């Protein structure tokens, strides 16, 4: 076991503990558990950042050609956004989705460590970095919208069916908070997603000479983009609120995650993580 693996494992462990503590803090009123969750997630994030930074510093070419790096980067961004939300907006409830997603992604990043991308030589081009960073960020935002959307649907259902008010419901934020986060994540996420998709096409145009090559991933991205655009339009132009946009955001994220895991791992595509 080398140093990187040790760092990987300890980060994964801390994320896992963070998710676990957060989960156990929900039914009760104890704030110490939430703080412990935050601290272990933040600790994991520090180690994770160190790990990623060290890898890039050591061998940028090799690192950026590894599938593991990208999955790990996505997990890193989830946690980054989550910590940002906690710090700036005091929104803690996304901890559950962010840290558990990060655990899943991070662990899967460890399993695909053997895979390496066939990335052409013009790797370090601006378009490619833009493509990765904006898309990953937008998926991070979409994950936030997903978490907030799920919470919204749950709370809406509880209030509608007139369930008894328990400690759990007292501890989660109000419906309009979830709606606000959902709105906010969609309004930032969509422009980023658009930039990500466009920069991908640009890069493909420069690198392969053709912008669109009927790759499954590309088709899927366009489909997600159309759905995302619809959601964005309903949210911003029509001012939609409530359950429907929440539900749409949930589906959109599941779509994205599905495309990321299924297409990248199993379908023939130039986004493949397989050898």
């Amino acid at each position, binding site marked *: 076991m080398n140093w990187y693996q040790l760092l990987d494992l300890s980060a994964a462990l801390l994320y896992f503990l963070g998710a676990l503590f957060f989960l156990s803090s929900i039914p009760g009123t104890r704030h110490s558990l939430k703080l412990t969750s935050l601290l272990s997630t933040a600790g994991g994030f520090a180690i994770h950042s160190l790990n990623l930074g060290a890898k890039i510093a050591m061998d940028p070419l090799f690192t950026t050609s590894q599938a593991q790096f990208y999955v790990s980067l996505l997990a890193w961004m989830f946690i980054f956004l989550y910590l940002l939300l906690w710090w700036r907006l005091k929104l803690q409830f996304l901890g559950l989705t962010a840290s558990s997603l990060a655990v899943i992604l991070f662990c899967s990043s460890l399993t695909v460590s053997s895979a390496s991308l066939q990335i052409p030589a013009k790797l370090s081009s601006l378009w490619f970095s833009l493509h990765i960073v904006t898309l990953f960020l937008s998926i991070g935002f979409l994950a936030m919208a997903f978490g907030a959307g799920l919470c919204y649907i749950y*709370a809406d259902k509880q*209030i*509608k069916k*007139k*369930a*008894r*008010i328990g400690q759990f*419901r*007292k501890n989660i*934020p*109000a*419906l*309009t*908070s979830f709606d*606000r986060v959902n709105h906010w994540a969609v309004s930032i996420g969509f422009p980023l997603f658009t930039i990500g998709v466009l920069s991908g096409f640009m890069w493909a145009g420069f690198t392969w000479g053709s912008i669109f090559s009927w790759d499954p991933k590309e088709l899927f991205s366009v489909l997600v983009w159309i759905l995302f655009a619809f959601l964005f339009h309903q949210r911003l132009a*029509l*001012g*939609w*609120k*409530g*359950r*429907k946009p929440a539900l749409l955001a949930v589906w959109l994220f599941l779509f994205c995650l599905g495309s990321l895991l299924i297409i990248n791992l199993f379908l023939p595509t130039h986004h493949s993580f397989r050898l």
Partner: protein
Amino acid sequence: MHAQIFLIGLNHRSAPLEIRERFALDRTAPSQLGLIQEQGPVRELLLLSTCNRVEILASGQAEAPCLQHLLEAWARQSGRSPEELRPHIYSYTGLEAVQHLFQVASSLDSMVLGEPQILGQLKDAYRLAVESETTGTVLNRLLHKAFSVAKRIRTETSISKNAVSISYAAVELAKEIFEDLTRQQVLLIGAGEMAELALEHLLSSGVSRILISNRTFSRARDLAGKFQGRAVAFEDLFEALPEADIVISSTGASETVIQARDMRPVIKKRKHKPMFFIDIAVPRDIDPDLNQLDSVYLYDIDDLKDVVEDNLAKRREESRLAMSIIDEAVDGFAKWLFALDLNPAIVDLLDFGQAVGRQELDKTLKKIDTRLEPKELEALQTMVASMVKKLYHPPITYCKTRARDRQEVHYYASLLRELFGLDRNEG
């Protein structure tokens, strides 16, 4: 001739809203009814008029048609015919009236069980009656008893928590829906006691923007002044609705005020921003289907009770406990009331005794033929008077404690008269 207690009234169950508004006796002093006359059968009078009820309580001669007098005076005061009023009222005589008054005072008869305002309203009504000098021995005693019963029920049962828990539930739910209550607007439709209570709870949680709509606009304006809100004419209700985030309805109208189909344009205008409806009225003001609409949440009183405490058996048990407290108090009051009928005999007895005492004192003073200082004379007179009182005390208490109903009262009154030869002396 003995005193009897009469009560006629109407409430949210006996009369629809329109009738209640038509026959309300707001700001009417009991003396204004013109019932209390030198030789009239009605001796004492009290008026209670709130959003949900009117109660006219009187004491008078048992044999006279007092209920009829009350009904006619009430209709006259409202400028209507007694025939219009008659089908909507209930009337009680004697201990039934006492029991009803106790139930009203302790909020067992309220639209929302245990709402605390009614006791204050009854106290105000009593103050008004005292000020216009329409109360006497019977009502004074009865009302004080009613206040103490209400207090006992409040402290010994959890009935009063019911109303508090309803407004608590309303606020908790509002907090689950809205992130920041200070930015939400509340619309009050109708102005019942319970609506005010719920509004006060919301105000203490930070809500500050208030709209008030009522069928009688002046009442809406009064309340708007009280809570620094804005009064909305009842006809403009649907124009104001899209502005409202939280709607508290308590008109108690017999028909539905807001239908689900009315909500479509409202929801559209609000762009699906959540709306929280609280329907406090019985019968309900708001179509239950509203809760099926997207971003609209509707809770009625029962729902609100259920979300905080769903122990129905316990609630029933508390009602039973409250009723037994009331029964006990009615019994106590009955004893006192019947004992009142002993009073003429007692007064005669004491008068007789005092007369005998005075006679004997005069005789003795003449015999000893000494000039007494005024101070000495006064002392002797006091001694004789208190001797008489002390001597007659045991038989009087004996009769008072034994006379449990009207018949017994009659028996003991004649027993006193016969024992002490009162009727013989009267001639």
